[in-house]
C-alpha cells in the first residue's frame, strides 16, 4: 500500500513537471496564434517577442497559459493530448485502419519478434561455439564487440540498400537490423552463463568421464538459464529499437517508425509522442512477458523458490 502511494506520487510529480514544461515550450507559438485571433499580446511586436525569454513572456501574458496545453501542433504536447491521441488511435480506430496504432504496432512487433528470434538463435549458437572453441573465442568475440560500436542509425540504411539490391525487402531487412542489435546481449550473457559452472563442477564431470556434449546438456546449458533470460530482456528491447530504426530510412508507410517519421514530416508532435509512448509500452509488455516466462521456467527447473 505504502509503495503504491510512493509510485503514484512519483508519477504525479513527473506529470506535473511535464505540464509545467509545456508552458515555456509552447508559449511563443500560442502568442502568435492568439495575436492572429485578435487578442492583445505583450509586447505587441513579434520581432521583440522572438528575442525575449520565455519566463518573461509567460509573466506578461498569463492569460495564454491554458492554451499552451491545447495547441494543435505544440512543440511539446501535454500529457492529456498524448493520452487522448493514444486512446483515439488504438481503441477508437478499427485495427485495419491505416491510422490505428495497433496496426502500426503490429507491423513493428512482427519484425521485432522475427529479428529477436533470429538474433537469439544466432547469439546462442555463437556462444556455444565460443565456449567450446578457443579459435572461435578469439575470432568471433572481437567482431561481435566491434559490431556494436557502429551506430545502428548509420548502418541501417546500408543494410536496407544492400538487401534491396539483392531483392529482399519488406519485413526481412527490419528483422535483420533487429537481429543485429539483439544477438549481442545474448552472446555475452550466454557465454557468461555457459562458463558459470565452477572448477569443482567441471572436475566432478571429469570424474564420471562425461563427454563434452553431456557436460553441455547436463551442466552448462541449465546453469546458463538465468543468464540467458537476463540477456533476452535486454535483447528484446534492442530488437524493438532495431525494428523501429529499420523503418526510418526506407520511408516505410507502416510501423511505429513510420508514424514517427510521418509525424515529424508534418509537424504532428502529438502523433510523434504517441508513437513513442506506444513503442515504450510495447517494450515494457515484451520485457514483462519475458519476465513471466523466466519465472515459470526457473520455477519448473526448481531454481526459483
Amino acid at each position, binding site marked *: 500500500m505504502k509503495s503504491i502511494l510512493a509510485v503514484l506520487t512519483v508519477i504525479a510529480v513527473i506529470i506535473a513537471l511535464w505540464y509545467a514544461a509545456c508552458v515555456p515550450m509552447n508559449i511563443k507559438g500560442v502568442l502568435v496564434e492568439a495575436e492572429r485571433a485578435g487578442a492583445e499580446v505583450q509586447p505587441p511586436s513579434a520581432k521583440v517577442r522572438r528575442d525575449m525569454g520565455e519566463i518573461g513572456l509567460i509573466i506578461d501574458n498569463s492569460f495564454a497559459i491554458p492554451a499552451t496545453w491545447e495547441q494543435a501542433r505544440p512543440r511539446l504536447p501535454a500529457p492529456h493530448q498524448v493520452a487522448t491521441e493514444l486512446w483515439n488511435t488504438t481503441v477508437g480506430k478499427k485495427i485495419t485502419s491505416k491510422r490505428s496504432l495497433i496496426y502500426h504496432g503490429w507491423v513493428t512487433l512482427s519484425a521485432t519478434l522475427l529479428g529477436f528470434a533470429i538474433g537469439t538463435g544466432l547469439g546462442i549458437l555463437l556462444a556455444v561455439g565460443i565456449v567450446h572453441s578457443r579459435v572461435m573465442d578469439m575470432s568471433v568475440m572481437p567482431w561481435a564487440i566491434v559490431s556494436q560500436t557502429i551506430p545502428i542509425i548509420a548502418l541501417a540504411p546500408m543494410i536496407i540498400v544492400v538487401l534491396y539490391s539483392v531483392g529482399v525487402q519488406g519485413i526481412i531487412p527490419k528483422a535483420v537490423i533487429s537481429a543485429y542489435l539483439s544477438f549481442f546481449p545474448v552472446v555475452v550473457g550466454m557465454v557468461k552463463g555457459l562458463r558459470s559452472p565452477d572448477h569443482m*563442477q567441471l572436475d*566432478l*564431470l571429469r*570424474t*564420471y*568421464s*562425461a563427454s563434452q556434449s553431456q557436460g553441455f546438456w547436463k551442466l552448462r546449458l*541449465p546453469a546458463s538459464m538465468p543468464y540467458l533470460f537476463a540477456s533476452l530482456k535486454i535483447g528484446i528491447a534492442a530488437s524493438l529499437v532495431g525494428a523501429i530504426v529499420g523503418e526510418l530510412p526506407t520511408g516505410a508507410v507502416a510501423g511505429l517508425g513510420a508514424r514517427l517519421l510521418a509525424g515529424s514530416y508534418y509537424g504532428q508532435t502529438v502523433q510523434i509522442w504517441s508513437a513513442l509512448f506506444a513503442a515504450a509500452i510495447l517494450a515494457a509488455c515484451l520485457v514483462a512477458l519475458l519476465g513471466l516466462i523466466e519465472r515459470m521456467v526457473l520455477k519448473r527447473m*526448481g531454481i526459483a523458490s
Partner: protein
Amino acid sequence: MTTESTTQPVIKARQLDLTFQTNDGPVHALKDVNLDINKGDFVSFIGPSGCGKTTFLRCIAALETPTGGTLSVNGMSADEARRNRAYGYVFQAAGLYPWRTISKNIKLPLEIMGYSKSDQDKRVSEVLELVDLAGFGGKYPWQLSGGMQQRASIARALAFDADLLLMDEPFGALDEIVRDHLNEQLLQLWARTNKTIGFVTHSIPEAVYLSTKIVVMSPRPGRITDVIESPLPKERPLDIRDTPEFIEVAHRVREGLRAGHSDD
C-alpha cells in the same frame, strides 16, 4: 595374473612427484611419495594445509598429472582408471545441481554412464537409504541442511559401481556435532559396502576414528612423513575415542605432524 591382481594394492604410488609451474615459480606439491592402499582400507591423509593432500587425491583421480614417479590405480594408470569409472569423488562442497532434485542429482552419474532407467531408480533408493536420506529424494538441494546436502553428494558418489571412494575434506565445512554423526554413518557405510576409501582431513580425532591407515604429510615440499596402521578394531562406537588405544594413536599422529613441522 589372477593371483597377482587379488594381492595387488588398489593404489600403488612410487616416487611420485608433482611440481606446479606457477607465475611465482615452481611449487613442489608432492615429493617422493610412496604408498600402497589395499582393498578395503580406510586411509586418511592428514597434515597442515598446503601439504599436498588434495593434490595427491587428485592425482589418484587423474585430475592432476604427476610430473614424476609411477602411480597405478586398480593395476592401471590413473587416467585409464578414471575412464573406467574406478572411483567416486566427494568434494569439500556438495556441489549439487540446484535445478535437480536430490534423486535427480544422484542420477547424474548414472545417466552419464548409461545405466537403464529402472536400474537408476533402484540404485537411487538404495543409496538414499544408505546415507539415511530416504524420503528426501524429491526435495531440491536448497531445501536440505548442509549436512544432508553433503550426505546426498556421498550418495551420488556411491550410486555407481566403483570400489574406490575418494573424499576431500567432505565434512570440513560442517559443525562438530553433525560431523561426529556423519563420521559414524560413514564407518557403517564403509563396513556395509566394503569399499576402499581415501579420506582427506586435518582433524586428528576424525582421522584416528575413521581410519585403518593414517598417512601423515608435511608441506614444502609435500611429502609423507609417517604411515600409521591403526590397531583399533573395525567396529568403532563413538566412545572409542576415550580409550587408551585411541589416545595413543592420536598422540602418534600429533608427533608425526610436529616432526614434519620442526624440520622446516
